[in-house]
């Protein structure tokens, strides 16, 4: 079935999912959730390790400007872009999703990684901000990242800003909080969730399992040709 049990003779994912460490909070939970999903993940802020990752997770809490500043200080921007450009699986979570877009309006206007078209804006609906708690996904376009997760599944959000993708085709799921926003996006190997799968109970663990499955198949394909 889809459930990603590691075959000892299959592609070796040992320590191959790298969780990017830029001083952004819940790295431990992200790593544990990946381990729960069958991968052995490592947390690293070493640009070389990040550049060499077979799959990357960019987690995150905090502010956009701060996130970008820390990524730059640690020399992580280039390795991140390198991994993304090479087609290796990439998952951005919360701030790690927002950082993928061109510009964030959080605390002024701050350029972000510019991997995905669009900008990040603040909730202005009068509802309490941050948008905090369990809200539902409305799946608008089937994607393997959400395999086994139907519309109406609850996931845990904590954020005050959200991305408005310049290309509606990348939206996989939406969530309603005063207005509808993109809560899952995907373009090629670049996947991202505005919520925290590592804090979303069983549903969230399934998302990490799906990501690990995607990472394994991508790695398997790559490993089929040239041995690393």
């Amino acid at each position, binding site marked *: 079935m889809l*459930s990603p049990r590691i075959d000892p003779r299959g592609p070796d994912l040992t320590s191959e999912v790298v969780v990017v460490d830029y001083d952004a909070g819940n790295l*431990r939970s992200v790593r544990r959730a990946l381990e729960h999903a069958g991968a052995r993940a490592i947390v690293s802020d070493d640009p070389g390790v990040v550049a060499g990752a077979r799959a990357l997770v960019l987690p995150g809490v*905090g502010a956009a400007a701060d996130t970008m500043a820390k990524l730059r200080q640690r020399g992580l921007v280039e390795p991140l872009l390198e991994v993304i450009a090479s087609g290796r699986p990439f998952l951005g979570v919360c701030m790690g999703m927002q950082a993928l877009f061109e510009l964030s309006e959080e605390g002024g206007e701050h350029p972000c990684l510019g991997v995905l078209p669009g900008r990040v804006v603040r909730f202005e609906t009068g509802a309490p901000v941050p948008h905090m708690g*369990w809200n539902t996904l409305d799946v608008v376009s089937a994607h393997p990242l959400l395999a086994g997760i139907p519309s109406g599944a609850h996931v845990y959000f904590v954020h005050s800003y959200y991305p408005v993708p310049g290309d509606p085709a990348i939206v996989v799921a939406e969530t309603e909080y005063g207005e509808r926003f993109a809560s899952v996006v995907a373009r090629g190997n670049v996947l991202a969730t505005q919520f925290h799968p590592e*804090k979303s109970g*069983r549903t969230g663990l399934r998302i990490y399992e799906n990501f690990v499955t995607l990472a394994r198949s991508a790695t398997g394909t790559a490993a089929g040709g040239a041995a690393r």
Partner: protein
Amino acid sequence: MLTKRIIPCFDVDRGRVVKGVSFVDLRDAGDPVGLARAYDRDGADELVFLDITASHEERESTYQMIAETADQVFIPLTVGGGVRAPGDMRRMLEHGADKVGVNTAAVERPALIEEGARRFGSQCIVVSIDAKRTSARGEPPRWRVYTHGGRRETERDAIEWAREATERGSGELLVTSMDSDGHQTGYDLELLREVAGVVGVPVIASGGAGEPEHLYRALTEGGADAVLAASIFHFGRYDVATLKRYLAARGVAVRPIVDAAAAAEREVPGA
């Protein structure tokens, strides 16, 4: 749709739950990880640990407990108690807490809220307010802020403090009515309404839950986004699942105990 949250709260002393419940199937009711898993299975939306460990040296056991819980329970964890400085916040977050509760130290030195919010993000900082009614019957209601676990009265007005705490960067407020706490006669709805009326962040109601109706009223009339409860669970009269079914039947949006993904898995044979 954003759902209302039910948040069980545990008191923890030197890494052990000292006021917890009595899940019959638990061999060790003082084991935080076992309790956290049981509550997670039962549909709890978040968990709050209040560390009452007296000595600073023994805090290590608390950090260890947070880590072990966070490694096995994938729902948000808030840890409060004894947080004096950004360094304390950092240690809790590093060990797997998602949010840190601050109370006395923030009242004594409000800049702590800004420091925490700037370094870790507002969403990590939960200012906890212990409020006690000071107005006489018939007067417009007023509440005073208490610190040191409710033992020390301050000059601060609770509603003013709620406003200031959020302006300084608190991402959420945990509002405890000292008049109601422990009495199981219902949350202080007036207090909740006043706080929710002046702040733009989520408000967690605390203090007074004894019946399902109390949770319902805090979430509707009180305008709270979440309800924290201890004794209602700890005496074993109600569990989270029962309370959620009750709230759902009364039209309150709550996260189902068995969520869609898990339900879908069950329907697929062999999955």
